[in-house]
Each structure stands twice: as structure tokens, then as C-alpha cells.
């Protein structure tokens, strides 16, 4: 069967570890020529899915193919697929160049290509240093160099910006977009919605191993972003009933120091202002708000967060996000 060379296709992929289902009948297609984000909370099954595509793990059922072939059927796999795994895959005692050299030798790639990719990621100066002494950022760069070694058509990158400084993050972003612009397939996982919203053209969102969304990033943002209005008043009086009477919803209400805050959805701010005026309710504030993408993502995946309670996970993720910025 002749398929487009760079297409990744997962069909009904299922992987269980003991009685825990990591990937649950997952089907999706990743097209070449764009950056496809693979998004989901920690433990959603992103890494496992990538390992299944790469033939490192064996699925209980379903198939994953690249250009119509399974990873095992690829003649010189590194020349078709470049992968950056989340877990460390380097011997600490081996030098960066020797790591790339042995990988090149398995494919019959000339040794000078190892130097080329070291230049590409800016590690030429430490080429002969043992990787045991590398920082997380340097390790990630070496991982990117290994992924680019065979000049592959398809790139699978598992959390590539982990541990990178802001400059490194920007580098990875630009790099991925350039690769996609050349017609390559770029499939990149992340648990950070904000990161994906600026990097990915297309999103595949999973939670607890199941597909949640599969659309362009723009569609996903429009669909998920809910508008709301913040209303602050010293005395709401009948405002609440008026709002619900007009089809609005009070999403939340609390009082602090004699001022009541209402979050209203389903009614535009001008209409709420008119209602307040008609009932002679004094308003201190009337602010239209757009839910952040991160919040939208959180709402969407709230049911599927694997560990701990959602609030804690949310907080943790925000902190993580902040540290990345």
C-alpha cells in the first residue's frame, strides 16, 4: 500500500502495563508539512504512544505505521525517523561524538555527519567530552543532534523543551517550524498548552490514553475558549435574577470586604451593564474576560488527570509553566 512517505498513522493502539491502561484504542494521523502538537497532562500516555510508534514497546493491540510501514520494517530507520525521547538514552562515560558516531555507523552514515549535527546544535566545542558531565540542556541538544543524524523525513520529539533555557526553547520552536516548512513531519509532545499554542499548527490532545481532540490549533482555541464577564458591585440586589432571567449563568459568586464579585457567562458585558442600570445597581467593575488557553486545556482534560487532585495538578503545572517562561 503506497502511503505518503511522512505520514504517521496510529490505529486503535492499546497498551496496558499490568492492569493499568496507558493507551486506550488511540487512533490519529500526523501529516507532513506542519508541526503537530501531542498534548496531554502528565501520565496521559504521550510517551508510551511515542514508544509504541518507535517499536520500543509492543502494543497489546492496534498498529502504528510511518509511511505505511511499522518501525521494524524500516530499512535504515534513522534516515526516515529521528526521535528525541523523554528519558535519558546516553551512556555517561561515552563522548558526545562517539555516541553519534556509533549511531551513524549502524546506518552507514559517514562520520562527518556526526560533526555536522554537533555544529547544528552548537555542541562542537564539547564533542569529545563525556556526556556524564552535560547539563540537562546540553543533553537535550545532543538528543536533537541524534534525531537529525539521518536527515530524517519524520521527527518525533518527546517534550523537547524540557530543561532548556528561554533561548534554547526559542531555538527548538524555530527549528521545528523550519523542519515542517521543508515538508517534514514534526510530531512533538508537551504537557504545556501555552507552549503548543505558539509552536503547533495542529493538535492531538489525549487524556488517560484516549483521544480528546484532533483539530487545528486555531479551531481548538476557538472551540475551547469560553468568554466570561467579571462584575463587581457593593450590592448585587436583584442583578443575579435579572442575569439568569436573560439566559446568563452565574459561574461563581463571592464577597470580600463588602464587595461582591460575580463571574457571568452567556451574556455580553454591555447587556449586563444595561441590566444593572435598569435595576439601579451600582457597579464597581465590569470586565469581559477570555479564558486562557491553559484554563481551557485544564477544563478539557480535568476528568483525565491521572494523579492527584485537579487543583493540585493545575497549580503544579502553572508553576512549571512559569519556570519555563
Amino acid at each position, binding site marked *: 500500500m503506497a502511503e505518503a512517505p511522512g505520514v504517521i498513522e496510529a490505529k486503535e493502539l492499546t497498551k496496558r502495563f499490568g492492569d493499568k491502561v496507558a493507551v486506550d484504542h488511540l487512533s490519529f494521523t500526523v501529516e507532513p508539512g506542519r508541526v503537530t502538537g501531542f498534548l496531554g497532562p502528565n501520565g496521559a500516555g504521550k510517551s508510551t504512544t511515542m514508544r509504541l510508534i518507535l517499536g520500543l514497546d509492543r502494543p497489546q493491540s492496534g498498529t502504528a505505521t510511518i509511511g505505511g510501514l511499522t518501525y521494524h520494517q524500516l530499512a535504515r530507520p534513522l534516515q526516515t525517523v529521528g526521535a528525541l525521547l523523554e528519558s535519558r538514552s546516553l551512556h555517561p562515560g*561515552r563522548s558526545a561524538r562517539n555516541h553519534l558516531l556509533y549511531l551513524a555507523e549502524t546506518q552507514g552514515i559517514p562520520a562527518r555527519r556526526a560533526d555536522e549535527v554537533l555544529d547544528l546544535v552548537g555542541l562542537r566545542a564539547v564533542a569529545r567530552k563525556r556526556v556524564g558531565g552535560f547539563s540537562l540542556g546540553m543533553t537535550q541538544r545532543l538528543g536533537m543532534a541524534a534525531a537529525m543524524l539521518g536527515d530524517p523525513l519524520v521527527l518525533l520529539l518527546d517534550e523537547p523543551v524540557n530543561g532548556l533555557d528561554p533561548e534554547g526553547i526559542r531555538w527548538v520552536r524555530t527549528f521545528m517550524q523550519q523542519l515542517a516548512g521543508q515538508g517534514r513531519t514534526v510530531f512533538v509532545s508537551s504537557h504545556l498548552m501555552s507552549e503548543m499554542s505558539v509552536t503547533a499548527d495542529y493538535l492531538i490532545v489525549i487524556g488517560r490514553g484516549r483521544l480528546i481532540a484532533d483539530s487545528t490549533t486555531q479551531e481548538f482555541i476557538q472551540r475551547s475558549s469560553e468568554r466570561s464577564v467579571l462584575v463587581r458591585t457593593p450590592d448585587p440586589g436583584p442583578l443575579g435574577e435579572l442575569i439568569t432571567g436573560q439566559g446568563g449563568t452565574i459561574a461563581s459568586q463571592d464577597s470580600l470586604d463588602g464587595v461582591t464579585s460575580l463571574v457571568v457567562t452567556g451574556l455580553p458585558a454591555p447587556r449586563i451593564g444595561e441590566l444593572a442600570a435598569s435595576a439601579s445597581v451600582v457597579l464597581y467593575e465590569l470586565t469581559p474576560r477570555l479564558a486562557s488557553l491553559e484554563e481551557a486545556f485544564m477544563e478539557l482534560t480535568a476528568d483525565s488527570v491521572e494523579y492527584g487532585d485537579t487543583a493540585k495538578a493545575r497549580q503544579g503545572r502553572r508553576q512549571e509553566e512559569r519556570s519555563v517562561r
Partner: protein
Amino acid sequence: MTAAEAPSAPRLTAVTPAGSPWLGFGRLLRAEWTKIRSVPSTVWSLLTFVIVAVGFSTLIATVIAHDWNAPGNHPNHAKLLTDPTAVIFGAGLGLGQLAICVLGAIVITSEYTSGTIRASLLAVPNRIPMLTAKAVVFAALDFVVSAITVFAVFFITTAILHSHVSITLSQPGVTRAVIGAILYLTVLGLFALAIGGLIRHTAGAIAVVIATVIVVPPLVSLIPGTIANHIHGYLPTVAGELVAQTSQQSGDVLSGWQGFGVFCLWTAVLLVACGWLLVRRDA
């Protein structure tokens, strides 16, 4: 990593399916050679082996030669006449072989503990050819280093003992025993490699290999009775070492080559089990 340098556009050709997984086996051998020579543990283990083997053999031979006429040294005289290589190889190689055991196990467990196995399997998804290439390269290295060491031990110790007893390669069984010692050390490395591949943890694998080589045999030999004697004789390294003797000794259940065959069989079974599990387990 300043300005993002884009690589040149890729070759947008169709993805090619692989032929036989053994095509390009030469490339795998080359890559495994790069892997084994580029980590410090290889150099340290082999250096330890050579130094311990040559050092202890020289020491023992010097002590025997020095105390030649001292009372109580007669058992060594008798042994040197009936089975000279057992005395020559006994101490040095008996201790030095542990370094080979450690290296054999580490060659494969270090891939798991460092995670290199994932990079390796992405490059070579067909796991049996990869394991085979690894075993072949390590066995070749082990063979060459063992050959150099065994001949060095033989010529150094026979030179030290020369004034008291003449041992040469032309005497019956001696050349066979010297070659046998080299072969034993080569298969021992593969035996350790197979156990490393089955256990996948460095400490655990080394413990099991060392226990099999130096702890289990003396324990089994403590059990009285002929059945226990036979079990002892068929233990991997007990059987394997027989080929490094010049002649079959009383109490040996097997002849030299029989024993070596038994050792090879143990190793082959473990290697097959290792390959079988490698294909089935998640990396």
C-alpha cells in the same frame, strides 16, 4: 545554538522497507566496536584482568620456585608434573577471570542502566542482529586479550620455574590446555553477557555471575555422594575449566573437551533465552 540554522531540505523519497534484518550486519559490528571501545569501563576491566592474571601468576610461580626445597612443597611438585597448567593458570587466571565476568555483564547492563538501549534499538530495531553483533564483537575482544594474557602467563611462569621443572608447549596436552584456557575465558565472557542481558541490572548481574563462578561450585562440592559429585562436574565453569588442564584428573566427571562442550551448551542456552526475552520485553 545561536540563530536557528535550518538543515537543508530532506530527500522526500518514499520510505523503503528493509530486506533481511541481517543485511548490513557488518555495519552493526562496526557500531558495536565503537560502543565497546568508547566507554572507560571496557579499558578498566581489561586492564584489571591482565594485571591480576599476570601479577598473581608471577607471584605464585616465584613463591613456588623460591620454596622449592622447603618441606611441605611436595604437593606442588607432583601437581606440576602431572598437570602443570593447572598450577600455572590456577591462581592468576582464577582471580583475573572475575574481571572478564564483570565486563561481560556490564557490556549489556550498562545499556539498560544508562538508557542507551533505547538509542541503540531506535537505530537497530531488529534486536537479535543487534545482540548477535554485540556478542561477536565482545567475544572477539575477549579472545584477543585472553590469548595475549594466557600466553604471557604461560611464558613468564615457565621461565620462573625453568631451573626446577621444564614445561614446554610440546609436552602432551600442554598446547591443548593453553588454547583451552583462552577458549574458556572467551566463552566465560559470553556466559556473563547472557546473564547480564537476562537480568538487565549491573549489580544483580555481576552478583549472579560471580556467585555462579566462585560461590556455587565449592558449596555443591560439600554435598556428599556421587550424585552431588556429578552435579558439581556439570556446573558451567567447573566443566568449562577442564579444558585448561593437560589431562583428565581422578575425580573429574568429564574430559577436557566434554567439559568445554557442557560449558558452551550452558552459554548457548542462556544466550538464546536472552535473545528470546530481548525481543519480547519492552525496552
